[in-house]
């Protein structure tokens, strides 16, 4: 049965549908520090929006608290700058209530991995169709520099003056362990890759998790240089491409093979290794995805960038709708008067 909301939403979009990136730039000044990685993440996101070909009023950005949380103010769509760690449950309720919307969550390593950790793993499990952009700067920035669940062991911060004692989460491994269907990683210095992954995340039906390395100039400057700077990045990252062999390095002369279950680096055409020994990436193989995810903190291995896994599973909100439709199809629309009357009643 249609409600007034359905009727209001049925009104046709009257304005132009061909947008440019700047249609998504509200005229407020961006309050991130000059040189903050977040600024470099914002632009591919803004450039992606016109590509979606949907009315901007159908797009919602939900964020938690953190520097990253300011994102919605800089994207001229509907937005919700919620409370710390709760962007995902809010987005979940919104998407279940409104499957017609394109729902994005912008969060941070503290917001999503620390206080929001439970909502994150349950989002991965439920597979509601929301796209998660996690700005990982390996520190709590808005609160001026404490270690986070992705900070490295030994990292010196305001709350770990003698070095952090925790080992970090491996966000992509956590997502896979929790049952996420779409898991990817990128960084603030490669906007093209980022825009591509965000597009894929948008197209993916179900929860899409994109970890984005984000350089915090003030509290953790250079944390990702090894993986993002022109000099070192070829040798220290590997770009995952579906169906392609895992090659990297200047001149792509290095590859990843499995010895036992453990990934190792080989030099092509040396020590008798050939291209055929090299692992071929397969987004649909969740075991491989986990093997790749586990490469993360091994300094002798390149850090995987790109889409680790993209498998299909019906999004949760579709199941909700199906169940309702099926029930209505078989039992008919609910009769309110009958509900009030109940199964057994009597006349006085």
């Amino acid at each position, binding site marked *: 049965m249609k409600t007034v909301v359905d009727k209001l939403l049925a009104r046709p979009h009257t304005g132009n549908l061909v947008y440019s990136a700047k249609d998504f730039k509200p005229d407020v000044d961006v309050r991130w520090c000059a040189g903050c990685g977040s600024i470099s993440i914002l632009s591919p996101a803004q450039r992606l929006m016109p590509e979606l070909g949907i009315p901007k009023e159908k797009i919602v950005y939900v964020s938690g608290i953190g520097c990253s949380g300011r994102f919605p103010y800089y994207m001229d769509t*509907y937005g*919700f700058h919620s409370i710390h760690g709760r962007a995902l449950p809010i987005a979940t309720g919104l998407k279940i*209530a409104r499957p017609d919307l394109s729902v994005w969550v912008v969060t941070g390593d503290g917001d999503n991995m620390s206080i929001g950790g439970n909502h994150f793993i349950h989002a991965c499990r439920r597979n509601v169709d929301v796209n998660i952009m996690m700005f990982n700067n390996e520190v709590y920035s808005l609160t001026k520099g404490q270690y986070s669940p992705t900070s490295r062991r030994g990292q010196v911060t305001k709350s770990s003056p003698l070095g952090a004692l925790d080992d970090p989460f491996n966000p992509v491994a956590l997502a896979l362990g929790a049952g996420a269907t779409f898991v990817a990683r990128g960084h603030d210095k490669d906007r093209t890759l980022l825009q591509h992954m965000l597009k894929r995340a948008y197209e993916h039906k179900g929860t899409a998790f994109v970890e984005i390395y984000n350089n915090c100039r003030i509290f953790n400057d250079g944390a990702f240089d090894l993986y993002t700077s022109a000099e070192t990045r070829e040798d220290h990252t590997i770009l995952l491409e579906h169906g392609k062999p895992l090659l990297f390095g200047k001149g792509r002369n290095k590859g990843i093979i499995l010895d036992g279950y453990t990934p190792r680096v080989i030099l092509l055409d040396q020590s008798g290794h050939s291209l055929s020994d090299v692992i071929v990436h397969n987004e649909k193989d969740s075991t491989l995805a986990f093997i790749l995810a586990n490469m993360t903190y091994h300094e002798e291995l390149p850090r995987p960038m790109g889409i680790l896994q993209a498998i299909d599973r019906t999004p949760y909100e579709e199941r909700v709708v199906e169940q309702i439709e099926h029930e209505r199809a078989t039992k008919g629309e609910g009769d309110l008067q009958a509900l009030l009357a109940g199964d057994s009643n009597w006349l006085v």
Partner: protein
Amino acid sequence: MTKISEHIEEATIRFAGDSGDGMQLVGTQFSETSGFAGNDLNTFPDYPSEIRAPEGTLYGVSAFQIHFSRHPVYTSGDLIDVLVAMNASSLKVNLPNLRKGGIIIANKEGFDPRNLSLAGFTSNPLEDGSLKDYEVHALDISREIKAALESQKIPSKLIGKTKNIFALGMAYWLFQRPMDATLNWIKKKFRGKDDVITANIHALQAGWDYAAGNPEFTRQYIVDRSSLPQGQYRNITGNEAVAIGLVTAARKADLPLFLGSYPITPATDILHALSGYKKFGVRHLQAEDEIAGICSAIGAAFGGSLAVTTTSGPGLSLKTEAMGLAVMTELPLIIIDVQRAGPSTGMPTKPEQSDLLMAMFGRHGEAPLPILAAASPADCFDTTLEAVRLALKYMTPVIVLSDGYIGQASEPWKIPSVASLPDIKAYFSEDAAGFAPYKRDEKTLRRQWAIPGFEGMEHRIGGLEKEDGSGKVSQDGANHERMVNTRQEKVDRIALDIPDAVVEGESEGDLLMISWGSTYGAARTAFERLRKNGYQLSFLHLRYLNPFPKNLGVILNKFRRIVVPELNTGQLQFLLQAKYVKPVTGVHKVQGKPFKSTELEEKLVSLLTHKEIIV
């Protein structure tokens, strides 16, 4: 054998036995039948916190009590007139509440040495004369059933399962109740299992016949139809009433209904009911915790749903931060708290009214929101509708307080026709031109409800303080003060939109009793009885706890003494004293049990006879 049949005004019967004995089931049947018979009634199920406590133990006793009458009934009864005790423990536990001279129907099987020792009896009360003040009917139910059903050659394992039905049959005879409703129910419930049906039907009849044919039973009691207003009736519990109230309100407001909830006793029934209403398009998320429950509801509210979250004390504690967000974003949201005995895990299956001050103040910062409390199972329906009306009209989260007592108790409810119900309206933003998210309606101070999908109204909300009107983030001091006051003013103005408080009895004078929530039943009963006995006092029930009805202050000043009975240590008392700076006498009970009307009666009598104020 001649039997006398006596007309009586009212009676209270209690079926008690092991968790496994099916007492809840026969209790429900007896109340349905009493309803059909035109009585007003009130029931209360009373089960152990253990799922299946060991058989025969004191803490394992499960009971169902029905108070039925030819007059209006407001409580499930103070004292028991008829106790059906399936074992020794259920006798032990309930004896203290049995009226002297009351009837005991005891199943001897439950009084073997093992049961007696588990109940802590040193000798068998059925034999040692300790029950001489009562009318005791002891029988071996299984044997009686076997005897009666011999002809039917029914498998004896089935017979074991019909003991409760046999007892029900006896109870029906005792009150001359028609059995057809139960017979139909048996046929429906066990459709397909013919042997079970026959077994139960015969057991029911056998119970009736046993009493009828047994010289011990000399009297039948007849409770005549009550003068309930004409109409179609059903029994309803508070939790059911909330659930269908929400569906009704959503239909009335023409909104989709969203429930974000996490199970918790005694609120879970609401989640259960709503999760079954798929036909009505109810979307529900059983969230990972209470925080996700309310946050998902906030998200759904942002998307244009009538959004609800249901919980009990511990869950309300966890929702505090998100409630503050709902206050700040000024989104409509219904928060239902079925209170239980705290603090902490406390006594999860027992009712209490101790969340009022937390509902009022349990958020950091200045975060006011309206609070309503339901007075009875049926009143849960109306209160829910009213909460939804206010939430939508003022764009605000609203807390509805119920409790484990009215949530699970049941009473007859006159089924309203959908058409007759009050209108409820949702106010969506209409015009993109000049739109601003915090532009307010002048009268209600309601802000805009512009949901994603509305073209040209793209905007951002959140937990940071924002500029009034534009809704832009603002850290300006003067604006903050204005917003804090506006949020308060918005709630205060609701006082102009709700009915004035109504005083019953003397319109002014010595003593005014004020009840709230489930205290209503016992308070009203005590009030009416005292009036009947010629006492001069007044009575007022408060549904609206924040804001208070606008005439409340004036009323308080018309009385020398204000008495507030509460199942807490004086929370409404505290609010009234703070707001009206007038001393209030509290009557407190914190035992995980509702007031007995007699308790209040005694307290009031002593107050009315000693004139000095007691604070």
